[in-house]
């Protein structure tokens, strides 16, 4: 059983991931559009209003009762940043027909229909706008979500570091938008934005679970799909584009009520060739991707400076982010140790064995991508946006081919962009 992408109309793709090993069917709809200061808040608001009511299920209570009757099916939504795109994400999960206590239902077909209705056929009461009450309530809720940015201090530090690195650029925008935009949004102009989004964005529908030859037919014949027109989707295909010139190292310190200091270091990668993502993945793994990594070993195990010390590679933007939770007075010492590790990577101060170990970890992760429905789905979506379309096999092969010298070459393309420290 193979992954099958199918273009339904130009700009709208159905991705089928047949899989009989799960108790559930998982479906996702991703609406991808360019990230702009003008639309970021509206786009973040749209999914929350859709969740309030659809044509057939005009209230949240009716939606909830319907989902509960479907053995606790779940409908979730959210927004994400993917490179310079904003992605509106919707998920619908329900149980696989093989596990229904009464065999007379068609859960997959019902789920698909309910899902498409929730995303594409909102409650408008026959007007050309969303229900004003829903929009006003969700504006209040979104305001609270935007304000809750400060609640998780480690995440806050990460968001702030990105904002400092990408001032006045799309990627520096907060994915939930801005409180000051909310005032001018109303049921009418939000509905217009929604219609515009539906006619211009890239739309991907994923169906993972029990294979059914009829899925494509169900989708094609669905009135909510039929009413969508073909489009040349407006989104930014993700490609590696480094900053024009290395920027001078910037240090930002802020104070908040914290017991532990949160240190973030944003690194720039001067790489252009998408094939270099493979050695970069290995580089990141050796630097801070596992318990064997330089950061974990030197910062936590040897110096006892932190409980957590790790790095993550954001392919979409050619960055690596280092994050540590440390005792506040240890700031200078920790930064110094981290800089030493970056230097050590340049000098090739790591063994072939470390390269092999990093590969083993990554290969193992790739092999088990099919064991989790959402991981599998996100893998194919990432490939879709990167426009690389590498199969899992190709991905593994390329990881296997990386050499120590390839990793050293990457190390020489790494520079510190911003050091961000959240202290008390």
């Amino acid at each position: 059983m193979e992954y099958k992408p199918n273009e339904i109309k130009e700009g709208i793709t159905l991705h089928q991931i047949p899989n009989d090993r799960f108790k559930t069917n998982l479906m996702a709809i991703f609406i991808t559009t360019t990230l702009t200061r003008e639309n970021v808040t509206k786009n973040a608001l749209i999914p929350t209003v859709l969740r309030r009511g659809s044509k057939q299920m005009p209230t949240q209570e009716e939606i909830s009762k319907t989902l509960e009757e479907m053995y606790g099916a779940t409908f979730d939504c959210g927004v994400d940043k993917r490179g310079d795109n904003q992605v509106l994400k919707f998920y619908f999960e329900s149980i696989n027909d093989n596990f229904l206590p009464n065999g007379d239902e068609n859960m997959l077909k019902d789920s698909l229909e309910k899902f498409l209705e929730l995303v594409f056929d909102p409650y408008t009461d026959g007007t050309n706008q969303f229900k004003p009450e829903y929009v006003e309530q969700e504006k209040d809720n979104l305001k609270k979500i935007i304000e809750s940015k400060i609640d998780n201090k480690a995440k806050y530090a990460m968001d702030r570091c990105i904002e400092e690195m990408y001032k006045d650029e799309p990627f520096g925008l907060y994915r939930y938008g801005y409180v000051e935009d909310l005032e001018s949004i109303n049921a009418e102009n939000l509905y217009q934005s929604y219609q515009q989004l539906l006619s211009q964005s890239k739309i991907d529908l994923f169906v993972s679970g029990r294979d059914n030859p009829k899925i494509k037919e169900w989708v094609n014949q669905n009135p909510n799909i039929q009413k969508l027109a073909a489009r040349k989707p407006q989104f930014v295909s993700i490609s590696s584009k480094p900053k024009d010139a290395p920027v001078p190292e910037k240090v930002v310190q802020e104070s908040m009520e914290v017991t532990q200091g949160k240190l973030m270091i944003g690194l720039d990668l001067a790489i252009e060739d998408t094939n270099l993502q493979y050695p970069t993945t290995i580089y990141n793994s050796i630097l801070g991707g596992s318990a064997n990594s330089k950061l974990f070993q030197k910062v936590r195990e040897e110096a006892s400076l932190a409980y957590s010390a790790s790095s993550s590679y954001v392919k979409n933007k050619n960055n690596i982010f280092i994050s540590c939770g440390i005792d506040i007075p240890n700031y200078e010492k920790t930064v110094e140790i981290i800089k030493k590790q970056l230097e050590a990577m340049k000098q090739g101060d790591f063994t072939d064995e470390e390269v092999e170990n990093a590969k083993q970890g990554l290969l193992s992760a790739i092999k088990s991508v099919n064991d989790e429905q959402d991981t599998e789905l996100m893998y194919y979506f990432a490939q879709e946006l990167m426009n690389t379309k590498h199969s899992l096999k190709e991905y593994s092969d390329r990881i296997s081919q990386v050499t120590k010298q390839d990793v050293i070459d990457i190390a020489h393309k790494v520079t510190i962009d911003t050091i961000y420290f959240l202290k008390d």
Partner: protein
Amino acid sequence: MQIVENLKVKEKVYQEKLDNGLTVMIIPKKGFQKKFIIWGTHYGSNDSTFIVPGETDVTEVPKGVAHFLEHKMFEQENGTNSLDVLTALGVNANAYTTNDHTAYLYDCTDHFKEALDELMDYVQHPYFTDENVEKEKGIIGQEIMMYEDYPQWKVYLNALEAMYHNHPVKLDITGSIETISQIDKDILYKCYQTFYNPANMAMVICGDFEPESLLEEVKKRLIEVKAGGEIKRIYPEEPDTIVKPKVEQIMEVSQPLYTIGIKDMAATQNTTKNPEELVKRHLAIEILLNLLIGDSSPLYQKLYEEGMILSSPTLEYEFSYTYAHLLLTGQAKDPERLLAELKQEINTIKEQGIQEEDVNRIRKTLYGDYLKEYNDVADIARMFLADYFKGICSFDYLEQIGSITVDYLTQILSEVFSEDHMILSIVKSDCQNASTKSE
């Protein structure tokens, strides 16, 4: 091996208690690449006062030893760290400590047997020195401080403190900087010898395996240890009553966090050593909480539309044979009003009775929820281990859902949902304090 099959979820568990007392459970998952193993001891942060089998005196150790041991088990006499060795094999290894158990685990796609060598070697060979114990105090100290910055953790711990007078469940699993400073290698060895006896341990493995031959692989890696006797665990007497109805802490948060706790000591009296009763009670409480304030409840709709809450609270029932409580957790504009509304809703349902139609719907939801637990090899194994230490076979939840009647729900509603047993824990920032007063 003994085989237990569940026809609803279409899974089987192969189980065997070995001569040394170790219980091994294997759940085959055909077609999965990922393999997962978890080896746990029935020893958690609650167990700091006990009688070692064969001794008569009571042993009391500082709070936080179980978690400290978990950290130190990875260090080997030859200078290597097992976490590094496992990571080098391409497996994801980890460990965790809860109130009632400690577990060591890894998942992998390849090198399962090499990793099994390492796991079973390090769990069976502790190596503690004065020096490595001292160094760990720095790392755990950072971990304790990290949790200090989590308002979600504080609101939870404060709720437990408001409910429990004496029971150690109210204490932080890690212990405090002060209690861990008293830990030395002798204490660690003593607790290890007591609680890491195979008779006090269980292993669960999930993945594409042939159970019988896998059991042999486990057996041949066991060192010879005689099954230990019963460890007598001593918990202080815990009254039914709560400590205080309300606890507040000031922290920088955008919107107040709340935990409503309902202490359920009746569970420890009514279900004594009867796992079936525990499962039924657990399910009944889940159904009742959903009826009261779940996604489709009138109360939730009302609170959501008023802007009081952004999502329905997280509903949990935490229990063992010596403590039990319900927790409703979330963020709310005014947690005190939320609690008042909840109390009123409880009274309304008590007066008007529980509707069969609503119960049927929630039962379906729970069926789906429990079924979903069987999608991932790691989730399955963790669930079987945690339930095992409570004497429960995880399949029982799916089997018992149908047996929860409206009568039984009505009985549990009046027994458990009493205002005397409720507490409210709030974490909010200074300015929210002022604004609530002015409202």
